[in-house]
């Protein structure tokens, strides 16, 4: 082990290298946001429209995956019922770090018009949310803008955030 003190700030080296690695990693992460298909209700239709040819999500590198193991973005599109809350948590836990969540539409944000016993009043009661999209349903443009916002957020983050996963509690 080296006996002398290495001053990384002064000698350049590590911080510079880390910044560059950060940039490269975040470039990769922000431009290949693979989303878990999570259409729960009518908002899911708009999410599907965003993925189809007219709005063409693929050009942002956002491809819908059917498995949580292959996804790092969860677009919760629709009404989350209390019966389903358990499963959304399980699927969220199965996604590999780093992972992000977009809550799409009023229902996912706050329970929306379903002010009843059977609807979870906002998915943020169950999983941590990065971005809330307003609307009932938000148009595909909104979802695309949301993904671009999320890309900016990812690029601002440190690439090694895998060590500190987001926690609800």
């Amino acid at each position: 082990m080296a006996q002398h003190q290495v001053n990384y700030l002064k000698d350049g080296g590590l911080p510079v290298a880390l910044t560059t690695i950060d940039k490269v990693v975040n470039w990769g992460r922000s431009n290949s946001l693979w989303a878990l298909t999570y259409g729960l209700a009518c908002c899911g239709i708009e999410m599907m429209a965003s993925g189809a040819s007219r709005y063409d999500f693929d050009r942002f590198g956002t491809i819908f995956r059917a498995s949580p193991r292959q996804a790092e973005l969860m677009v919760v599109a629709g009404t989350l019922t209390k019966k389903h809350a358990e499963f959304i948590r399980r699927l969220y836990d199965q996604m590999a770090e780093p992972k992000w969540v977009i809550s799409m539409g009023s229902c996912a944000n706050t329970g929306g018009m379903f002010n009843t016993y059977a609807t979870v009043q906002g998915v943020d009661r169950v999983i941590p949310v990065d971005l809330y999209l307003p609307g009932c349903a938000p148009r595909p443009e909104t979802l695309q803008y949301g993904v671009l916002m999320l890309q900016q957020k990812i690029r601002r983050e440190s690439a090694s955030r895998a060590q500190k996963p987001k926690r609800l509690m």
Partner: protein
Amino acid sequence: MRAYTPKDNVQKKPYYTDRYWVAPQVAKHDVSSDAVFTDDLEAIKAQFDVLEAYIQVDQMVVIINAADNFGVIEMLKNERAYNQLSEMSAIDWLADEGKFEIFYQMLSMSKRKRLRIKCKIDEKESIQSVEKLFRSADWSEREMYDMFGVIVNNHPFMKRILMPDDWEGFPLRKTYPLQGDEFAAWYEVDKIFGKEAREIIGPENRDPARIDRYDTERFARLGHEVPRGTDISNGEPDTPLVYQESEGVFMIEKFDAEKSVVISDRDR
């Protein structure tokens, strides 16, 4: 003295208080006004007790004893050509008379007639399943159990159908609050995180329009983003909406509207 309001029916409220107002009733006609229904009613009366029978909106309503439900429906299916059970469920009259009303809506394709069999049971009483006669009763009876707590005898799979298996309470009863009781309010928190998480997660916000505009811990307004936790009670700086950071992004080319080609001829 305060006016007495019954506490046993949480959804009941005087939505119409004009004391000269009379609730409209659908007219009831005598069964003898329809030859087909008269025959059907005679056939039922020959074997079972009929408490009441009338015609409402061109459909015959026959009120029978709850114990006869299987026999009456079997007879109507096999002998009277009522070959479809289009709907069945219960109605909660617990507050008024302490009973559930069970109805079976039947259709005869060949006679082009609909009739409704009704019977009443007590709250704790159960009823015979008609699933052997009509497969459609399978899920309807499960739903009736799920929503009202009416237990159906001889059903092959008596289990909740819509609500989770470990749900408490029967949501379509008049005594069940629309926004759920305490069990419902904490259901997902209790199930996923455990009861001790209730304090951390907090009660449900049942007012979806409520927004704490100055809460920068949990929210950033689009176009007005500030670092987390900043005090913005004196206003926040305006940041224009951008699709990409202004200084450009590593390895990503910025979109230039000048250089793009606009296709105006769609049939090209």
